[in-house]
């Protein structure tokens, strides 16, 4: 156990995974077949010894409520700690622009106030990474910083992490300024929207933000704070993907098919937990031809697959040729279907349509429960 309260934040409006997010918050989106996005941050927290976790949801809480349950499958002991789902709703909220992280923190302030922990660790539900928060907290204490911001130095900022905050750091790793990644540069220090501070300071900053403007989000107040406060960067070196658009979702899925890349995310002794579905092992038929794929249990594969991610319980019938696609759980692909560069959402039935083609930069999206 570490002396920190875990806070799972939701994204700002720049985060928009087209299609998929019509049906659930980003953190509830299926990822790599077996998981939902939120499994990564929650597993990171429980593996780090954080047992008291508040998950903030902006809207459509159902799928998250079900995925999280009591948290026992994430290794949270029900009476010592717990997963609490906090909802940002307020009575005077007439429009979405007021429904942001700061207003959700403010609406649920009492639950943060009642927590016993000295520190808070805030991490978003849309980052896929493998981070030991115990070490981040240790570094935070040693640096005597007011706020520690976890960042990653990347050389692909012109292709990834669009809309994320970039950080200017001095030699002592103190953050001197922030900007928004518009994709103009390659080399950037990108904030992973992951913060450590005392619970008291966090509550003060939330108050401060809402005093300045009812439109202020948490990253706005942090931008304003780099001057008066000592805000320090912590460099994260492992795999990280920021899932803030459909292409980002698609690219991260494709990238992690490679077991060598995946090894940088799935580390020994650092399990990524998820909710079991009690599905049977995947079945590969006589005519199956599967190369370079990530397959979840419950699948029945009788066709050809190349560079695909299959969610639980996907059926691929004979004669199918599916390439460079992400197929979400419980989808059925009928005989002789050709799919290329696509994201097929949950519980889709493909029977009459025989060809679905997108492009590498603009994958096709088939919506949830569609029957085509």
């Amino acid at each position, binding site marked *: 156990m570490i002396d920190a309260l875990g806070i799972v934040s939701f994204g700002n409006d720049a985060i928009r995974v087209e299609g998929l997010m019509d049906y659930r918050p980003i953190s509830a989106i299926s990822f*790599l*077949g*077996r998981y939902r996005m939120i499994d990564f941050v929650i597993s990171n927290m429980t593996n780090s010894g954080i047992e008291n976790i508040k998950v903030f949801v902006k809207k459509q809480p159902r799928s998250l409520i079900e995925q999280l349950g009591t948290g*026992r*499958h994430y290794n949270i002991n029900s009476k010592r700690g717990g997963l609490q789902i906090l909802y940002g709703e307020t009575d005077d909220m007439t429009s979405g622009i007021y429904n942001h992280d700061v207003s959700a923190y403010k609406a649920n302030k009492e639950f943060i106030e009642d927590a016993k922990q000295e520190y808070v660790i805030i991490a978003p539900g849309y980052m896929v990474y493998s981070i030991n928060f115990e070490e981040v907290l240790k570094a935070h204490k040693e640096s005597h910083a007011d706020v520690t911001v976890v960042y990653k130095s990347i050389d692909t900022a012109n292709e990834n992490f669009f809309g994320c905050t970039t950080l200017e750091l001095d030699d002592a790793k103190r953050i001197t300024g922030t900007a928004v990644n518009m994709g103009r540069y390659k080399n950037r220090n990108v904030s992973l929207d992951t913060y450590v501070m005392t619970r008291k300071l966090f509550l003060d900053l939330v108050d401060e933000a809402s005093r300045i403007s009812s439109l202020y989000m948490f990253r706005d107040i942090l931008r304003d704070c780099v001057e008066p406060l000592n805000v320090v960067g912590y460099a994260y070196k492992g795999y990280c993907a920021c899932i803030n658009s459909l292409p980002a979702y698609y690219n991260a899925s494709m990238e992690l*098919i490679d*077991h060598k890349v*995946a090894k940088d995310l*799935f580390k020994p002794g650092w*399990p*990524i*937990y*998820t909710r*079991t579905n*009690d*599905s*049977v*092992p*995947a*079945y*590969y*038929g*006589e*005519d*199956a*031809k*599967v*190369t*370079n*794929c*990530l*397959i*979840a*249990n*419950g699948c*029945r594969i009788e066709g050809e697959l190349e560079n695909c*991610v299959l969610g639980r319980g996907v059926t691929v019938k004979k004669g199918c040729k599916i390439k460079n696609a992400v197929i979400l759980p419980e989808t059925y692909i009928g005989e002789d279907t050709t799919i290329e560069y696509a994201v097929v959402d949950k519980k889709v039935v493909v029977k009459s349509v025989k060809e679905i083609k997108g492009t590498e930069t603009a994958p096709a999206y088939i919506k949830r429960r569609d029957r085509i």
Partner: protein
Amino acid sequence: MRNNMLGMILAGGRGTRLYELTKKVAKPAVYYGGKYRIIDFPLSNCANSDVNVVGVLTQYESVFLNSYVAQDTRWGLDAKDSGIFALPPREKSESGFGEYRGTADAITQNIDFIDQYDPEYVLILSGDHIYKMDYAAMLAHHQQKGADLTIAVLNVPLKEASRFGIMTTDDNDRIVEFEEKPKNPKSTLASMGIYIFNWKLLRKALVEDDKKENSNHDFGKDIIPEFMSTGKNVFAWTFDGYWKDVGTIDSLWEANMDLLDPKNRLDLSDPSWKIYTEDIATTPQFISAKADVKHSFVNQGCVIDGKVENSVMFHDVTVEEGATVIDSVVMPNAVIKSGAVVRRAIVAEGVVVGNDVTVGTEDGEIKLVWKNVK
């Protein structure tokens, strides 16, 4: 217990003919089907049949089995008044400490456990059979017939009948004769070792049997003959699905291969009758660019770089590039190194088959690989 029936699973068997697979775990805990342990089947059947309180009678190497079954959330028997309870032998205030002397004695020694729940019916099961059965349907038959005891029976080939307890029934399913392993079987209706008893009558019979010096304290040898000879209403309920008792390496291998048979009737993917088991945190399965997987079951966490054909792979098995697995069962965390060939084999948990090693042959005996081979 909404249907007023309590389940008791006999899970004390050593399974000596499974050799090294049962060295540290009892037979009901042996792996099966790429993901399961044998006892998952009766436990899942109970959960799916609304039998919500289940006692598991353990004895041999029970540490693992006791803690395995006690995690009743796995089978969804986790509601307030539900539960799975491991019942090893224990010291009693009146009679001291003693191991179970027979299948019936295991129940006798736990009469106080059963009495806590005051059930109308007790369902007796075996912990080492693979099958899907709706015990609620069997109970409905029991109630409809006004039975004191109902025995689930299976039609077996005549030549195998002498290995079983064989029933003769009348037109009304009433059992008119019962013979334990008869030399000249009069029927092909074999007892599956699955009984529904009216608890009051069974309780009385057990207490009486306990005192008999010459008794084997066994259901098949003592309790059922006693029910028959005293004119109780004993009925048969015919089961018509897949059923397998895996007592040997050969039959364990066969049972796994049965799953790959297109005509196999043990459908593990039916969402209305799931088989539940331990939830293991692994990655998805990685099938690499060099992999060739055909006609196989592959479980989560596997990393397949080689060839897998007509096989059942448990979780976190590694098959390296250039390795071949055919007609085999590979248990969790085993590693088949590059160039190795595994045929007609059961590879035990965690075993490493070294580079370029060959185990098993195309048509030879089933090989149990229980330690690393280099």
